[in-house]
């Protein structure tokens, strides 16, 4: 059997197992919207741990991470820095969101927001922003899967077929089992990613340089500029401290607001599950260290791949590894891609139906589930189309979408913590923040100190939210009090010891 055939067999095996797990997962879930979108609120710690780990670290981390370390050096360290910074507040925010979700029956984050700040246009706007941010994200995951398969099978399976196969399977299990499939396949894929990354991260430098230390000594002698922050830009110029630091900030602020992650608060079995997921998160995050090491291993390699993102498959194919290892690596990369892609497809369709359609048109439980399935297919098709006809613009779109997603933070935090926030305040803050973000995205030369456009957006967003809220009338104080009461977990009286925002307690009934 030829080498590529053996590799193909391993990949096929991996895909079959994933499909099996995905289809099996749905058998126990109830046939309701809560079952399809929020897993009957029954996810335990193991599943939650891998959902957050495997979903957050997508094909971008597995292929892009080594690519960054390889071409931009220490610039990649920003990815290592932000994860837990973004997740830690969830130890407190997550249970609050989950309690409100249980009390009022929310399954998406927009429902939570609109529950506190009733406004149909707000619901539609958030749904639209979510879909716009998701499409390039899914497209990149699909391309990642296709690229890996094409590379390791010596182009015997071209990109269109590889991406089609991998995502055909994703769509099949998301359609049949909903979030339960996402949860259980992510668990399998997460374990896979961890094992493959750590194994290769230690094995490759050993094989090529005789160890991790010797490898970095050689890089320090020949390319020292790669080993200190802030590293280089994509063009190979030194990156700025302002750009590097605000990339960490905007990612930390935005990361937990990605709808496919936020919504999992509603899928957790209980508050302690959410808390433990946060506590354990750093242990997953550290897998970025071997991922970067893999990228650095390519720096002194005599040849170079056409694009930095291909460094991982490139190295794997050139270092005469056994076919088994190559096949497993490929499965690891597919895991990274598919575990994010499935969550995105599922969450995107759920948000589109729950927040984009339902506020305007009454739908039964059965119709909602049917419409979600149609939209999973439609989003998959659109992303597949873009995946085949790609330009650089998609990567750019994805990076800019972080700036937009970060604008979801102030409204959601005020919904859960700040009594005096009002609908006009939240809507005008969101519009102003998004407008500023988009302006500086397109006029990037005007950004002061190379600050990230999302941070500049927040600098306008927050004062507008607070200012407009304070000059508009306090709305429905009893309803707000009941909402925040549910968020605190039903404790009586106004003074729960919950720290956090400390933002204006003023403005009473």
């Amino acid at each position, binding site marked *: 059997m030829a080498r590529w055939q053996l590799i193909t067999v391993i990949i096929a095996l991996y895909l079959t197992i994933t499909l099996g797990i995905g289809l099996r997962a749905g058998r126990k879930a109830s046939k309701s919207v809560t079952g399809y979108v929020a897993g009957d609120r029954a996810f335990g710690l193991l599943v939650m741990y891998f959902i957050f780990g495997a979903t957050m670290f997508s094909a971008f981390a597995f292929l892009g991470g080594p690519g960054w370390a390889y071409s931009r050096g220490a610039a990649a360290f920003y990815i290592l820095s932000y994860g837990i910074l973004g997740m*830690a507040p969830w130890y407190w925010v997550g249970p609050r969101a989950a309690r409100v979700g249980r009390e009022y029956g929310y399954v998406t984050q927009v429902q939570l927001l609109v529950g506190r700040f009733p406004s149909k246009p707000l619901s539609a706007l958030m749904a639209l922003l979510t879909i716009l941010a998701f499409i390039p994200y899914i497209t990149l995951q699909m391309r990642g899967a296709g690229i890996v398969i094409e590379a390791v099978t010596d182009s015997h399976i071209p990109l269109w077929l590889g991406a089609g196969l991998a995502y055909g399977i994703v769509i099949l299990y998301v359609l049949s089992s909903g979030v339960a499939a996402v949860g259980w396949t992510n668990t399998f894929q997460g374990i896979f990613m961890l094992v493959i990354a750590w194994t290769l991260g230690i094995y490759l430098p050993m094989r090529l340089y005789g160890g*991790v230390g010797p490898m970095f000594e050689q890089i320090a002698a020949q390319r020292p500029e790669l080993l*200190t922050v802030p590293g280089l830009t994509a063009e190979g110029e030194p990156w700025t401290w302002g750009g590097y630091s605000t990339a960490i900030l905007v990612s930390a602020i935005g990361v937990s607001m990605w709808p496919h992650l936020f919504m999992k608060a509603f899928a957790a079995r209980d508050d302690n599950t959410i*808390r433990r997921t946060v506590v*354990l998160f750093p242990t997953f995050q*550290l897998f970025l260290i071997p991922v970067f090491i893999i990228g650095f291993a390519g720096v002194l390699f005599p040849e170079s791949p056409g694009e930095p993102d291909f460094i991982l498959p490139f190295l794997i194919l050139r270092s005469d590894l056994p076919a088994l290892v190559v096949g497993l690596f490929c499965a690891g990369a597919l895991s990274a891609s598919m575990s994010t892609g499935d969550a995105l497809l599922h969450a995107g369709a759920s948000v589109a139906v729950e927040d984009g359609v339902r506020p305007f048109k009454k739908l039964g439980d059965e119709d909602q589930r049917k419409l979600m399935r149609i939209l999973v297919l439609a989003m998959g098709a659109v992303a597949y189309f873009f995946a085949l006809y790609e330009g650089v613009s998609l990567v750019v779109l994805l990076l800019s979408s972080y700036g937009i997603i970060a604008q979801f933070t102030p409204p959601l935090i005020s919904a859960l913590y700040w009594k005096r926030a009002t609908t006009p305040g939240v809507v005008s803050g969101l519009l102003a923040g998004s407008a500023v973000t988009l302006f500086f995205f397109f006029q990037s030369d005007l950004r002061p100190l190379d600050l990230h456009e999302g941070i500049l957006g927040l600098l306008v967003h927050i004062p507008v939210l607070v200012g407009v809220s304070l000059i508009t009338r306090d709305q429905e104080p009893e309803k707000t009090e009941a909402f925040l009461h549910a968020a605190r977990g039903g404790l009586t009286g106004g003074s729960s010891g919950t720290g956090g925002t400390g933002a204006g307690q003023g403005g009473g009934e």
Partner: protein
Amino acid sequence: MNFRGLAERQSELRRSKLRWTRRGATVFFLFFVLAVTWPGMAPFNRIHPLVLGLPFSMFWIAVWVFSSFLVLVAVDKIEGRFREEDD
């Protein structure tokens, strides 16, 4: 009346423990942000000495990530003891 007073005092004590835990954690994560961005990162932004084979800059960030794990474990222990089941 006396019993009620005692229960209230205990509940107050419990809340103040929680408050201090949360303040402590907030302070830790603020230092974390400072330590990995400008200007806090600058003094530690160097290649040598390599630690565990890693450049010092990378090791420095990894230490903060790992410490946050320890801090969160501690927070969870303390919170678990003083949080009422519905808090």
